[in-house]
């Protein structure tokens, strides 16, 4: 039994460097494995729709005739299941997280495969 058992520890941290980071100024380091967000290399995708059917959260929508691959970033739980089931290895997990959004219409990312023109990426308005 004793008093001030933690005294040494707190004096050590008083004169040492804080363990926390000044967040917006100092960015967090991610590991190569970090699951941030799902990305699709649309040139490899064959729009089979397996990722959409297997998604536990129902965040992915694929349309074969339109050559469209669409993900709702706020629904996605980044479980990586779509990446694991993708037969053509088109899907991958980016290290960086989806940035927070104030505008709900930005939550859906849609990718279109090439029709005439090359790959283009755009953020769809309020789907």
């Amino acid at each position: 039994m004793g008093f001030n058992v933690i005294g040494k520890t707190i004096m050590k941290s008083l004169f040492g460097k804080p363990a926390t980071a000044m967040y917006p100024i100092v960015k967090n380091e991610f590991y190569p494995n970090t699951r941030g967000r799902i990305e699709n290399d649309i040139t490899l995708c064959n729009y089979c729709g397996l990722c959409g059917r297997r998604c536990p959260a129902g965040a992915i929508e694929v349309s074969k005739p339109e050559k469209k691959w669409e993900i709702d970033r706020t629904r996605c739980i980044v479980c990586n299941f779509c990446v694991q089931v993708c037969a053509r290895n088109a899907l991958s997990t980016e290290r960086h997280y989806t940035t927070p959004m104030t505008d709900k219409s930005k939550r859906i990312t849609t990718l279109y495969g090439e029709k005439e023109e090359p790959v283009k990426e755009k953020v769809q308005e309020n789907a």
Partner: protein
Amino acid sequence: MGERTIIPFGPQHPVLPEPLHLDLILEDEKVVGAVPSIGFVHRGLEKLVEKRDFHEMVYVIERVCGICSFIHGQGYCQTVEGLMGIEIPERAKYLRTIWAELSRVHSHILWLGLMADAYGFESLFMHCWRVREKVLDIFEETTGGRVIFSVCRVGGVWKDIDNDTLKRIVTVLKDVEKEIKELSDVFIKDYTVQKRTRGVGVLTYQEAIDLGAVGPTLRGSGVPMDMRKLGYAAYGELDFEPIVEKDGDCYARTLVRVREVFQSLDLIYQAVNKIPDGEIATKVRGNPPAGEFISRLEQPRGQVIYYAKGNGTKYLDRFRVRTPTFANIAPLLKMLPGSDLADVPILALTIDPCISCTER
């Protein structure tokens, strides 16, 4: 004796950011009765099993709880594997064990911090959580997630940890062990901490058994029950004994958890030394057959029970989770009457409540 006051404890109470509501009936500052109500965040995840096939369901079950998410995933997979009669590769068993024990380490350190906060020991709280971050970093490095790992699958695991990384993890954990040693001294030796925890909320041996207490709450009362002794995953090949304390008060429960942190670290070292090379997953063919399976696992908070009922399709008929907190509410109700109002946060925390977990 003063008038009776009713103090509403929760669902939004600063000590427990979880939706448990207790109506505490007070006489002066003595609690004479407590009526719980839960159900504020009931999500019906168990019911979702009828709409998600048994592979996808892993990710749903993992989200039952944020702290012991890995063991939920593991338990689900183990139950479905039991139902389907799948034997998973040895390496996968060891990897599951390592992640599960790391989960236990981080959960117990988190709990120690919260406990410190319950009796107003802010610096201890912060230091505990600082140490915990290092364990979370290991998770992020090996699985990609800090809290929800999504590495378990029916038939094994998704990701392997190579042997060099395992060795590095051990060195990091040795550091963590040193720091926890320093902090655990405070829980064990500090006068003010002892003053708040010793003799508070005593649960006797027989009460703990009869009321169905689980985990550290049970072992703090001297009952040597630890589901890991069933030998699931790789626990059958590792050397450990359930940690037991006799007193049954908050101090004993704290001590059980402190000692379990070191035990878990030791189990990880053992597992890293013994881990065999090989496959990390077996191929799963077909759907779960008609039948029932019950499995019991040891979570940081205590025993968790899973029940699965298959019907031959890819959707299970029923999946049931009995979380440890649910079992521990009855002992909590036993402990509360007769305590001081000042003890209520400590008692509520001493069972390590995870209400969101309880309301699957």
